[in-house]
């Protein structure tokens, strides 16, 4: 299983902060799977949306491979400081 977290605007729009999903080979596959849910998911994970991601708390890109037990997070561009 992979733990998936959502932060800030994504958490509010998707109405969930975390969930567990079946393991997939990489971040691209995970994003495709989430988009396939349709509705807000299709919109947020669609092309042209600027969503950032991390794997095990490190910034990641779509080619980042995933392993069972990984922690993935999706979030909007950061605005701290």
């Amino acid at each position, binding site marked *: 299983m992979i733990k998936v977290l959502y932060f800030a605007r994504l958490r509010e729009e998707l109405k969930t902060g975390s969930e567990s999903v079946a393991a997939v080979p990489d971040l691209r596959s995970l994003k495709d799977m989430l988009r396939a849910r349709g509705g807000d998911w299709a919109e947020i994970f669609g092309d042209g949306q600027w969503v950032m991601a*991390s794997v095990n*708390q490190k910034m990641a890109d779509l080619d980042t491979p995933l392993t069972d037990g990984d922690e993935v997070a999706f979030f909007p*561009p950061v605005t*701290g400081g």
Partner: protein
Amino acid sequence: MPYNQEGPSVSEIVIQSEPIDVAAIQDKLRANNPSVGAVVTFLGLMRDMNQGDQVFSMFLEHYPGMTEKALREILDEAERRWDLLGVRVVHRVGELSPTDAIVLVAVASAHRGEAFRACEFVIDFLKTRAPFWKKERTGNGDRWVSARHGDSDAEKRWGE
């Protein structure tokens, strides 16, 4: 490079919901260390206006665990690039009001050039790589703050 890769890091990170005690942090950076010739401090404060709207308060969300790791990477890179004697980063989370300090970056070094460079480097990268998100309560309702293009431009100045 004068930085000893095996040596202990001189930097410290704190994420807190309490107000930032600026004076105590600066004092600690220079206390009992007569090698420190310069301390440069950046303090980021909450303004009461943003994009033309009055802002009454703000909520700062973060990603516990990753926040510390992202900041640690930035500070390790700063310590590799410059010869530093101490670095403190304190970032608030939770509810904030206008004039509250949001973030402090303080850098001590022997000479001023290194302290200025490192301080600006840390805040530039914090703005684009540390997982914090601001939600503003304005006269036109609540809204998430959008990332500024200026911030990614500021980061790009530093190269890789």
